[in-house]
């Protein structure tokens, strides 16, 4: 009986304890706090670089703090309106019922999805590599090659119906990326040359190659700027709404690919081999897995996904190829894949966040005068906090989980 009397009290106590422990040791808490902390630091950066704040400092420190808070607040309001839309305008548009106005009001939201699409592809590319223990810094270069291949397929293949031309051009783009991933993959597997250095080198080779092609063979006839001709009408990805909404088919292809990568990694034997090699290549080799094939295949598939991002941009958004058309989707994807814990679902969610940030930042630059580059700073902070969760745990006094999940993503230069 005494036992029974004590029991409820004990349960209540442990319930609270469990709750606190669960929250403070959950990896999700660190993720959320990392994003929040990055946004706070970004706001601080805006306030510290605002001239109004320094003007107000002359009056009183309190006024300076108020002005700084206002500056940071208006920045994030502009960011939100750029990323999702202005709620008041959206409601007004829906009430008015005018199709054109509705499209305009909801355009920021669809533009965020548009920006998220290449992020999903490159994020999946990085995540797949991480799962197999490979660090593919070359997603940016693979994206460029994918775009070059896709734009060539879009320009030079003529007379096909869209139902064939679109997937063909898209797959040719993926093939280009796969080729650019295959080379460092085979070099890693056969000679042990580290994929990080090789993919960095391949990035620059891809940039120079695209510059050469756009000033030479691929340059639009009669053009004086390095830009390719527009692709055939039949190679363009379908758009769902009229102007100005650019939202297109690519987003759903990206979601489909996320499902494919999930299915591959977690439901197939090959996926198991990938993950096993990623965790412990030596044990995997002794258990009979073919590391050479896994390494080459993983790099090629990772490259193919990054190539799809390039194809998506060319076939869905730009319809032609210009020098430096990608503004770092491949590099941002490193932070993105880690934020998403290298899981396809996490990648999709992080890509939506990054897409919204980027799309919002473009708007913010116009309305609040804050340079778009602030999103790079935010991404760097997010990545730093994700990569070193101990910082977040120290700042917010979270408990360290008993089983500490530590991701070893890349190894020394020598392979192994």
């Amino acid at each position: 009986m005494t036992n029974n009397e004590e029991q409820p009290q004990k349960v209540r106590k442990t319930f609270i304890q469990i709750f606190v422990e669960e929250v403070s040791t959950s990896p999700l808490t660190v993720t959320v706090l990392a994003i929040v902390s990055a946004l706070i630091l970004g706001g601080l950066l805006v306030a510290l670089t605002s001239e109004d704040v320094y003007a107000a400092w002359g009056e009183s420190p309190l006024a300076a703090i108020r002005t700084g808070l206002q500056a940071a607040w208006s920045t994030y309001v502009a960011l939100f309106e750029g990323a999702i839309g202005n709620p008041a305008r959206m409601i007004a548009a829906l009430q008015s019922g005018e199709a054109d106005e509705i499209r305009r009001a909801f355009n920021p939201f669809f533009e965020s999805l548009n920006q998220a699409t290449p992020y999903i592809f490159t994020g999946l590319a990085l995540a797949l590599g991480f799962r197999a223990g490979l660090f593919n810094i070359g997603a940016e270069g693979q994206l460029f090659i994918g775009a070059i291949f896709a734009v060539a397929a879009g320009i030079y293949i003529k007379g096909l119906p869209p139902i064939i031309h679109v997937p063909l051009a898209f797959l040719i783009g993926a093939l280009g990326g796969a080729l650019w991933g295959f080379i460092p993959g085979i070099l890693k597997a056969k000679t042990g040359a580290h994929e990080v250095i090789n993919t960095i080198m391949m990035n620059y080779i891809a940039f120079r190659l695209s510059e050469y092609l756009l000033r030479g063979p691929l340059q639009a006839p009669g053009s004086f700027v390095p830009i390719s001709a527009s692709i055939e009408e039949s190679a363009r990805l379908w758009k769902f709404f009229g102007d100005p909404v650019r939202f297109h088919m690519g987003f759903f292809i990206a979601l489909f690919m996320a499902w494919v990568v999930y299915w591959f990694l977690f439901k197939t034997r090959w996926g198991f081999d990938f993950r096993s090699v990623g965790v412990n290549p030596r044990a995997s080799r002794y258990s009979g897995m073919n590391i050479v094939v896994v390494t080459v295949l993983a790099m090629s598939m990772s490259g193919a996904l990054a190539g799809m991002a390039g194809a998506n941009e060319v076939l869905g958004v730009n319809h032609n190829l210009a020098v430096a058309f990608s503004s770092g989707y491949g590099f941002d994807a490193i932070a993105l894949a880690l934020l998403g814990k290298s899981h396809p679902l996490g990648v999709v969610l992080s890509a939506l966040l990054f897409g919204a940030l980027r799309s919002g930042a473009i708007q913010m630059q116009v309305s609040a005068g804050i340079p778009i580059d602030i999103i790079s700073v935010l991404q760097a902070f997010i990545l730093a906090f994700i990569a070193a969760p101990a910082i977040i745990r120290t700042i917010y006094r979270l408990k360290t989980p008993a089983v500490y999940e530590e991701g070893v993503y890349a190894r020394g230069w020598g392979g192994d």
Partner: protein
Amino acid sequence: MATSEMTITKTADYVSPTRQRVMGILFLVIAFAIWYFFSRSLEPGIQTTFVLTPGGSETQVPDWTFTTAPILNIFAIMCAILGGAQLARGFGSRTNLVLAWVVGLFVFSFLAWATADSSLNVGGLLRSSVGFAVPITIGALSGVLCERSGVVNIAIEGMMLTGAMIGALIGSLTNSWIGLFAAVATGGLLGLVHAVFSIKYKTDQIISGTVINIFAVGITSFISARFLQKYQDLNNPDIFPVWDVPVLSKIPFIGPILFEHNLFVYALFIFLIVLHIGLFYTRWGLRLRSVGEHPKAADTLGINVFRTRYMAVILGGMMAGFGGAYFTLGSVGRFDEVMTAGRGFIGLAAMIFGNWMPFGAFGAGLLFGFTNSLAAKVAILGVNIPSEVLLMAPYIATMIVLAGVVGRGQMPAADGKPYEKE
């Protein structure tokens, strides 16, 4: 992996029979190329003039004029003989040296052929190569410092970029010397960040480097867009002037190429010598290298692994900051967004190419600087080679070296591995 473990344990002198044959065939191919592409297409009696005095230099050397075709034929025969000797007997550990000679002959032949019946300022070409080599080599030295202590540093690019921006900003507000000092301090600060992440928190060093690179691009472009573009006075530092070294600049040919530069080139020479002696002939260097090769053994002997690595990475960061200042205070006189344009990554390549040795890195830096310099001139030469293809060469060469085709480098054994004290 099995293959990589084997190649690492091989001694540096060993040259596999396959590689020996590949090299021999390569030399023969180059000999054939010199004859087939260059010498054969020239009319006999046509002459090439190499101007050996860079423009504006006081130390004059007479121009060098020679009849092109016979010289090229001699070079082709020399390459063929070297190729034959390589196939028959092999040069063993000196294979790479011979390779360098053959490549040198090929480049010389190319230049002679491209400027047949006209003239080329070889002196100017080489002097600007040295200029291009400065940021690349300093970046590589930054990498050497970090990686010899066992910390991979791919953040050289970001450290250089931030150093360049701070150098321009502080240099405009005060003077160039204080700007340079601020750039070095900024690099050191980023080095500290990299060290804390990779040593204290044991973050993956490549991710830590990526954080710094992304942050550097963001913060420099942000400040540039917010302030530097609006207030031109904040982005207008004085460039360090060219200063001829009194006696050395009077040496014919070499003097103007090496000793008519500004502070940065001379600082590079000093860094090279100090770092080489420091790393290989002092107790400090022995300790630094031991920490990068076998931290556990070093720890057992009482060397503080963490402190040594902190010091090396911070020094490496300062070095990269100095290299970044070259862009704004040594060459352009203004900060532009993302102006380092991958020079830090070429520096990383030069470090690998130079086998983690200071002078090796300098050699690689000169080679890469030469391709840069040549790419800038190739349009003037009127040769139908796109400059972009030349600019790709350093990256492709690095991948070939890394793949072990030209002999594998000896990287520090514990490079990139965080040290866990037991």
